[in-house]
């Protein structure tokens, strides 16, 4: 039975090899070669120049991930404790924006956040701008706008894994904890939180990774001043600064840092579990 079924995995394994492993290998080759495909480490020597972009990317991605977690966890928790009808509705509402094109969503945010955009016009109408004595409140082009864009786009990826872990928690465990004398706060801290950690970890991963490498959001909402790694890499392949070898090197460094982050985080996750155990 099992062996027969395992043949169904062959197309996927083939696809992974063709579309994931080989491209990564190509990237590695590019990163370590010059335009004439001579071996070199020069691409990495220039990395220091882009330190500020690296810093900004990781800083904004970490902030966006934290904001997603702070919003996502309570929402997931609350959803999981409502009736099934409400859960379906909430799930539909969370998924709804994702049916729209990603660029369209981001463009919408531009028109909301612009200097004479919807939000500033609203502030003007209620007299806030006059009260502050300014023409407009600058929102677009700030790091905040980029974080907002990322949170808006990636929040569902935080909510879904946390929600699905919490909703599957065995109710008798919570009853057992209460039975043993734990009040609601302690039940949450000692049982729900540690048991939902796997969902938190996968949520954090699913938000953090695309956030670090995001490019359209930072360009559209960052107004060119908040350039991030994704934009930098895009420029090396498509933009004026055409240099695929440098682009590959940047991608590689980013990938290594992200993988390191994940390893550290998963370790921290296990440590947390250990700490509860000890």
């Amino acid at each position, binding site marked *: 039975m099992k062996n027969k079924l395992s043949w169904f995995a062959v197309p996927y394994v083939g696809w992974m090899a063709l579309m994931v492993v080989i491209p990564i290998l190509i990237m590695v080759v590019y990163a370590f070669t010059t335009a004439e495909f001579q071996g070199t480490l020069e691409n990495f020597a220039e990395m220091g120049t882009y330190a500020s972009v690296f810093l900004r990317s990781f800083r904004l991605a970490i902030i966006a991930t934290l904001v997603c977690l702070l919003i996502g966890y309570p929402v997931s928790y609350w959803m999981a404790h409502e009736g099934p009808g409400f859960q379906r509705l909430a799930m539909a509402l969370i998924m709804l924006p994702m049916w729209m094109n990603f660029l369209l969503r981001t463009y919408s945010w531009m028109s909301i956040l612009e200097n004479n955009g919807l939000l500033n016009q609203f502030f003007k109408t209620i007299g806030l701008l006059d009260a502050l004595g300014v023409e407009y409140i600058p929102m677009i082009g700030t790091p905040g706008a980029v974080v907002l864009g990322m949170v808006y786009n990636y929040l569902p990826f935080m909510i879904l894994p946390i929600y699905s872990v919490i909703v599957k928690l065995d109710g008798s465990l919570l009853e057992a904890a*209460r*039975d043993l004398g734990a009040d609601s706060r302690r039940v949450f801290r000692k049982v729900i939180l540690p048991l939902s950690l796997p969902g938190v970890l996968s949520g954090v991963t699913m938000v953090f990774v695309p956030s670090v490498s995001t490019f359209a959001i930072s360009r559209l909402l960052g107004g060119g001043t908040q350039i991030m790694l994704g934009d930098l890499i895009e420029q090396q392949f498509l933009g004026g600064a055409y240099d695929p070898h440098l682009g590959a090197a940047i991608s590689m460094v980013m990938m290594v840092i992200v993988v390191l982050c994940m390893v550290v985080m998963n370790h921290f996750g296990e440590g947390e579990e250990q700490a509860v155990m000890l």
Partner: protein
Amino acid sequence: MSKELIRLADCTMAFDDEVVLDKINLSIKDKEFLTLLGPSGCGKTTTLRIIGGFQTPTSGDVLFDGVRINSVPPHKRTINTVFQKYALFPHLNVYENIAFGLRIPKVEAKGVKVKLPEEEIDRRVTEMLEVVNLRGFEKRRTTQLSGGQQQRVAIARALVNRPKVLLLDEPLGALDLKLRKDMQNELKRIQKAMEITFVYVTHDQEEALAMSDTVVVMDSGRIQQIGSPEDIYNEPKNAFVADFIGESNIIDGIMRSDGVVEIFNRRFQCLDGGFEQDEAVDVVIRPEDVDIVPEDQGQLKGTVTSVTFKGMQYDIIVDFYGFKWLIQTTDLSPVGSRIGIKIDPDGIHVMKKSEYSGMFGDYSSYSEEYEEISDASYDPEEEDSGDEE
């Protein structure tokens, strides 16, 4: 025995107009082993959850040591529970599972929260591990334990808090027969040693009879009978109890006078009295209380229609005037033979007619399959899923 510890007074529980418990009145004494026994859906688990504080009765009172505790949440009751599927914390090891309750700061008289010192926790957890025979398993993950071991962790986790009452919700249901018997003895030993009131829920009548001081038989949200295991078995109050506890032949009878009951137009001596003259009654005759005699000496005469070898005895079905009886005997009477039977006066139990009259006690449909279905622990689903493979 000793003083009353818990009282349920007129407790009714209804979910969306569906009455699960109907005016239950129950008194639980200190240090007794009380079993709530009944088929699934009879309300026994709901009763347990009301005592534990997980459900508040729709009406009626729950009293603990004379104090009304209807709205006291579970974590403030000195009652602990062993859950049906154990509900061990998967993220904690055996030691920490047991220490869970001890690590919770207790509020003292002046509202000050006091934490148990680590040595005290360690001493009590170790002591508990000793009691349930799990020394050396401290660092094990609960997922690595067998069912019986998980069961013992669950018991230790509850008992370490030194509750006044331990509630057990079908705790042995998931264990195999051999282990179940061992755990029954184990539980009884722990209960005696620690002098704690046990309230035990089960659908297994043998288990209930073997372990309990008091058995409470329940059906359809009502208590059918409360009594010692001997009382319940020997003097069932109605046809439901007679049928649920052990095997019973339940026959329509007429009480002619105190000590005389008429079955199949023949008068039998019995020990019961206090009925109206000529009152219609249910008569219970246990299969092991029937003596087989040669046909001409019998009080009743019948034909053997089926014989099943049961190891210790034969289960034979005998047709008396169209009504089939189950008789347990060590002597083989072949199918088709004519036999007579004699019943001693103490083998005849007379009960008032009830809503259960006529529902049980006829073995006309008796077969191997019938026996399996009547065994509450038998799960037809299991067999079905086996067929599919």
